[in-house]
């Protein structure tokens, strides 16, 4: 009798407790290895940023939060769990994001694309690589060959555009097959595939691992690409302040990445195993993608293109209303709450700037087109140099001192993105000044026009050191 009374009172107590103190789930699906999503997932989780912004006033006075994190290697399973109601937020690229919208509609619900996390309006981030031993130097060399790409990914969209730009029929002139990055990595190593198109970070990661060479940058196709965050519409309408809190956390994560790219590149390496020097390619100044959380028209267009492409491939039969699917009210509110100007960011197309002095001369670097950088092993900061020549002579003395180098970077003369210098091509002008290029053909063109020569990394290094 006594026991029963105790149990009953306990049950009553717990019931009244749950009425007063509501527990709100914040379940976020991330893609840790897709390292440009870091501001929307990995960094928020690792640094506990969400707790700082979750509301505790008004209707949230007595709320407690149940924050759940789940990591995925692609957007599809993430969408799967969102549609099933197991996740509230998810980070993914334009193409899988469009699928997310379509899958929600099919299930009679809606999702909202609430922010951009990182992207490039020209398409850098996506790229095409060939096995390291391949003779191909550009996409044009791949006619009649077998190319693989993760199906229906942002890289797939880029590849179709790139193939069309060559004047090729994607069904006849090349054999495009589907391959996830996990599978493609092995296939490239075993020389089973002529080329592979992929998204962040694989077009940089595979070359950095030494078994592949990048021969095409997404910017050549001029197809905007980005990764962004989505939320379940029902959830967003019920807890708009939580959505804003999540975006404020991602704004802070973004600022941290911009302020200390080396430090957070190391953190991303610790969590994902993707080398810090690859992460720095994206998160460092003058990086492959722009640090941008705003809904630029180009990014809206990227979602539209994704939907159109999917319909063209007969892989989706319903369209999406972009005006309701892309919802910028939350990111606007988050900018405001964080004291930032959304309109200003919307107009800002610049890469994260390089504010640094030349490591040799100590003079501030003003011309970014010839910048080269060296990440010396064991050093917390990347060394910046105003010119490739300066970097090469520094590299020579580093080698003499027996210091190990993690990576050498150069800025592509044409697209302005950061390159792994060891795989870049260098062209001199009449004065012998070196400019860096992704492709041999681009370098050759520049050298021909400027009366210079083309060098690969090793020869450019020897040339620069000898010329001093």
């Amino acid at each position: 009798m006594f026991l029963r009374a105790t149990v009953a009172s306990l049950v009553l107590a717990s019931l009244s407790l749950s009425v007063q103190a509501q527990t709100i789930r914040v379940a976020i699906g991330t893609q840790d290895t897709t390292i440009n999503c870091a501001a929307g997932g990995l960094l928020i989780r690792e640094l506990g940023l969400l707790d700082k912004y979750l509301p505790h006033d008004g209707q949230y006075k007595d709320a407690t939060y149940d924050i759940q994190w789940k990591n995925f290697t692609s957007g599809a399973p993430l969408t799967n769990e969102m549609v099933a109601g197991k996740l509230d937020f998810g980070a993914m690229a334009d193409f899988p994001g469009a699928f997310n919208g379509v899958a929600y509609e099919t299930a009679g619900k809606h999702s909202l694309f609430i922010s951009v996390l990182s992207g490039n309006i020209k398409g850098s981030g996506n790229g095409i690589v060939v096995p390291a031993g391949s003779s191909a130097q550009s996409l044009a060399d791949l006619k009649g060959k077998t190319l693989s790409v993760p199906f229906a990914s942002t890289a797939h969209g880029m590849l179709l555009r790139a193939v069309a730009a060559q004047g090729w029929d994607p069904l006849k002139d090349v054999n495009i097959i589907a391959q996830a990055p996990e599978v493609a990595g092995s296939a490239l190593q075993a020389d089973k595939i002529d080329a592979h198109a992929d998204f962040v970070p694989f077009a940089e990661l595979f070359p950095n691992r030494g078994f592949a060479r990048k021969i095409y940058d997404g910017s050549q196709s001029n197809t905007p690409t980005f990764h962004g965050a989505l939320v379940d519409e029902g959830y967003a309408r019920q807890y708009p302040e939580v959505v804003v809190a999540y975006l404020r956390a991602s704004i802070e994560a973004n600022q941290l990445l911009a302020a200390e790219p080396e430090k957070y590149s190391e953190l991303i390496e610790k969590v994902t195993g993707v080398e810090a020097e690859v992460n720095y390619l994206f998160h460092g100044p003058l990086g492959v993608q722009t640090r941008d959380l705003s809904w630029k028209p180009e990014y809206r267009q990227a979602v539209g293109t994704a939907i159109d492409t999917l319909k063209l491939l007969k892989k989706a039969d319903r369209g999406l209303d972009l005006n309701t699917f892309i919802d910028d009210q939350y990111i606007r509110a988050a900018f405001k709450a964080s004291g930032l100007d959304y309109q200003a960011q919307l107009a800002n197309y610049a890469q994260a700037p390089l504010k640094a002095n030349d490591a040799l001369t100590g003079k501030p670097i003003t011309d970014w087109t010839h910048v080269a950088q060296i990440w010396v092993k064991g050093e917390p900061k990347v060394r910046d140099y105003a010119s490739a020549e300066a970097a090469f002579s520094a590299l020579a003395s580093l080698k003499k001192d027996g210091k190990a180098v993690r990576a050498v970077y150069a800025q592509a003369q044409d697209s302005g993105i950061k390159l792994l210098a060891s795989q870049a091509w260098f062209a001199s002008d009449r004065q012998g000044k070196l400019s860096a290029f992704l492709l041999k053909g681009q370098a050759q063109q520049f050298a021909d026009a400027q009366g210079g020569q083309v060098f690969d990394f090793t020869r450019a290094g020897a040339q620069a050191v000898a010329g001093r």
Partner: protein
Amino acid sequence: MPTAAYRWLPRASSLLVCLLFWQLAASHHWNLWLVTFANVPTPGAVLEAALALVDSGKLARHLGASLGRVFEGYLVAVLVGIGLGIAIGRWKWAEDVLLPPLEVIRPIPAVAWIPLAILMFPSSELSMVFITFTGALFPILLNTVHGVEGVDPRLIASARSLGAGRGAILREVIVPGAAPSIITGLAIGMGTSWFCLVTAEMISGQFGIGYYTWESYTLQNYADIVVGMLLIGVLGMGSSWLVKRLGAAFTPWHRLRGKA
């Protein structure tokens, strides 16, 4: 056999009841506490997806590719599994030398083999065949070992006393004695080979029922996924049935006792 004819009735009705349950659960979005059917496509939607697959003109290539991969892997597994199984079941030294490494490899799931399968074999096609092979091998191997070890030693002793040599004992006593168990292994192996198909065809990139299912997942087409699942189920069931039938034809001396 007239008895067999009317047994089809309950079998067909059982399938129909399952179908009916699926239709009701999916169309009414049943939420059964632990499982919910809220987001499960209905049989109608799946049928539509199946018709779309037929219309796409790719079904034959999908089926051809998958059947080829499963049967090639399976055939190799039959040869290797029965060969090794007889050796292990018959000779202690073979058991000591061969079984330990095989037992280490046995629990490794097919999906874990993907990277090595790509690296080790000269073509993607062979990588996939290798994965369906790993799926089929162990049931065949273990059932063969079991069958061979289960042969009555008195039979072997009598054959030997009648002057049978090693080869004759193997041919006339061991293999026929182990055959029922081997055939069980063959039927199970057929199923487990299909089991590994989706995993194998994650490498495919173009054709195959497993690839179709996997691609549908990437595209979030749940109805197509179910089409792929059902195709694999039906093909697996059909080929297992075929193996059992063939097995029964080859072992006329062995008849299962009837059930109540």
